[in-house]
């Protein structure tokens, strides 16, 4: 039965995780993500799962990777300093191709910063936070419903691509209550065990081009060796061979880059004839829509591109919009992070304008409308 509830974004996230089949959570209390851990501690025992409050965020990230190899879907949630502490093990998750979900309810930073205020200032860390070359998948919800939906989506993407998936939420979405519609069933991607022919040698990392191999659980009898060292197709360390390393790391990147069209998700509104496009992700989108509608009423040809998946960045869609648009505006709750990507993709063909806002408070529709008008009037000049 479809259920309607009026809940906090962070609670919706926990409910989404349970619906997606998450049965293990390890975490450490940190504002403004703590309600996710609290809700998981209530929900997991009622659904056959386990909750462990770890000694820190490093341990939390490690524990969910261990749990994933035990054969359960696992998640952690954190904010600010916590996500910095998790970075090394996120990289371990990448190289070992371990499906895990990490929720980051972003807060004002750097350092301890503004624990109770919102920001989007970890977006580049989501992409580049762990050492080394890798690609990542990150989703940014802009509503309580999306926090539920995107958490489920994160679990599915994690399983499909055997990769850590980040849900880059923020304090605004985490800490507001809205109606949540919980469907009676959700589509989930289940894990599939390897199937071997008689006498076939098991090669846990013998993945197809741009793809991944099925993943067994520990205890399934495959005797898999999982290591953070550069490894060959058997999973065995092979750390001095340039080719082994190149093959591995390129495949880890390609399985995301070459499947971008399947991973990227976005929503276009009023873009058909748009000369100005406001590109947003996460909570600022909410102000964008009001501003775009008001600008339209004043006859400005402006549209909105709302990106659900900041990583991988939807290059193709932006390029397409840049064929018609002369100007792109990006509101971000930081001093300019994703705007560098927008600049990279659209900067040759169009002007890119940042509305960077820090301090913890969401952009108002007026601030965005003002920028739209300013850009529109310059176009006329």
């Amino acid at each position, binding site marked *: 039965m479809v259920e309607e509830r009026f809940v906090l974004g962070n609670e919706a996230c926990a409910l989404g995780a349970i619906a997606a089949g998450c049965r293990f959570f390890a975490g450490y209390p940190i504002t403004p993500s703590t309600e996710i851990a609290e809700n998981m501690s209530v929900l997991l025992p009622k659904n056959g799962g386990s909750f462990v409050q770890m000694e820190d965020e490093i341990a939390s990230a490690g524990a969910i990777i261990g749990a994933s190899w035990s054969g359960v879907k696992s998640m952690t949630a954190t904010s600010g300093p916590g996500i910095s502490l998790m970075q090394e093990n996120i990289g371990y998750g990448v190289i070992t191709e371990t499906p895990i979900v990490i929720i980051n309810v972003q807060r004002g930073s750097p350092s301890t910063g503004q624990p109770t205020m919102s920001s989007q200032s970890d977006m580049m860390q989501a992409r580049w936070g762990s050492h080394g070359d890798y690609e990542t998948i990150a989703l940014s919800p802009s509503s309580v419903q999306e926090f539920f939906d995107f958490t489920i989506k994160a679990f599915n993407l994690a399983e499909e691509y055997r990769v850590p998936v980040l849900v880059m939420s923020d304090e605004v979405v985490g800490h507001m209550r809205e109606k949540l519609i919980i469907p009676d069933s959700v589509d989930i991607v289940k894990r599939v065990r390897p199937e071997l022919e008689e006498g076939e040698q098991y090669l846990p990392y013998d993945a197809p081009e741009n793809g991944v191999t099925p993943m067994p659980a520990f205890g399934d009898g495959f005797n898999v060796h999982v290591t953070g060292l550069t490894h060959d197709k*058997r999973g065995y*360390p092979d750390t001095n061979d340039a080719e082994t390393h190149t093959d591995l790391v390129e495949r880890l990147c390609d399985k995301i880059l070459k499947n971008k069209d399947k991973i990227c998700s976005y929503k276009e509104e009023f873009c058909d004839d748009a000369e100005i496009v406001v590109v947003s992700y996460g909570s600022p989108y909410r102000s964008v829509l009001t501003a775009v509608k008001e600008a339209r009423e004043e006859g400005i040809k402006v549209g909105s591109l709302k990106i659900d998946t900041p990583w991988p960045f939807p290059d193709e869609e932006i390029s397409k919009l840049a064929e018609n648009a002369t100007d792109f505006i990006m509101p971000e709750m930081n001093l300019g992070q994703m705007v560098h990507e927008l600049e990279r993709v659209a900067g040759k063909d169009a002007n890119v304008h940042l509305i960077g806002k820090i301090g913890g408070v969401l952009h108002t529709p007026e601030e965005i409308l003002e920028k739209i008008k300013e850009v529109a009037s310059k176009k006329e000049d």
Partner: protein
Amino acid sequence: MAVKENPYKKYLREDRLPHIFCPGCGNGIVMNAFFKGLEGSDVDFDNVSMVSGIGCSSRIPGYVKCDSLHTTHGRALSFATGLKVGNPNQDVVVFTGDGDAASIGGNHLIHAARRNIDLTVICINNNIYGMTGGQISPTSPKGSFGTTAPYGSRDVPFDLASLVTAAGASYVARWTTAHPMQLAKAITKGLENKGFSFIEAVSQCPTYYGRKNKLKTPVLGMDYLKANSVTKRRSEKMSEEELIGKIIVGEFANRPHKELCDNEEDLVNENYDGGLAIKSAFWEEF
């Protein structure tokens, strides 16, 4: 004369040999003691999963023919916590070293012990960082030399067995590579204990610790361990001064009490009819 094959070779991934350990390293002795301890226990090798961090001893699981998780430096116990809680039916064994467990992983060590999670941890303590070339570790004896203690270590080392005992582990023992029989027996007990079991195996490192500390050959290293070991019982009658430089061996704790996974499972059974969702990632729906 035919060469007698090691009876424990069947447990190894032969396609990974030769191993990377130096000649005379204590890791081989501890591995033998582990297999002996395993065979003497009620634990089935097929049910064993291994976890390790980073360092020489952490390479051991990679050579053993079982599911093995070679993790990040110091974090083996965090990964092992998730692996074990996710599926408590596995027997999870952690191999770690003094740098891995006591330095970078010190916090995880005391918390895993506090939770009394059912893991068997074998910590090969060679008093030095071998993998990176001989730097002093948190267990290096006062006055010992390393590449980062060219004038001798001035710090007081950790007494790991006592630390883990104080933190709440239900089984703790310390032996050395010069005591392989006792070590194997302690491993058997550790494997059979339902709770956090910590077996410290003090070991020689001829290549780095030995070279820097006048114990250049494996024999010298092992003779040193043997000569300086004092049983727990005897140590209790010795003064602090008499104990300087001694290695106290024996059982430090054997006090079974409720462990983490049991508590987790109880919580599920009190709140849910379906039991633990073991290997549920493979389920079609929930």
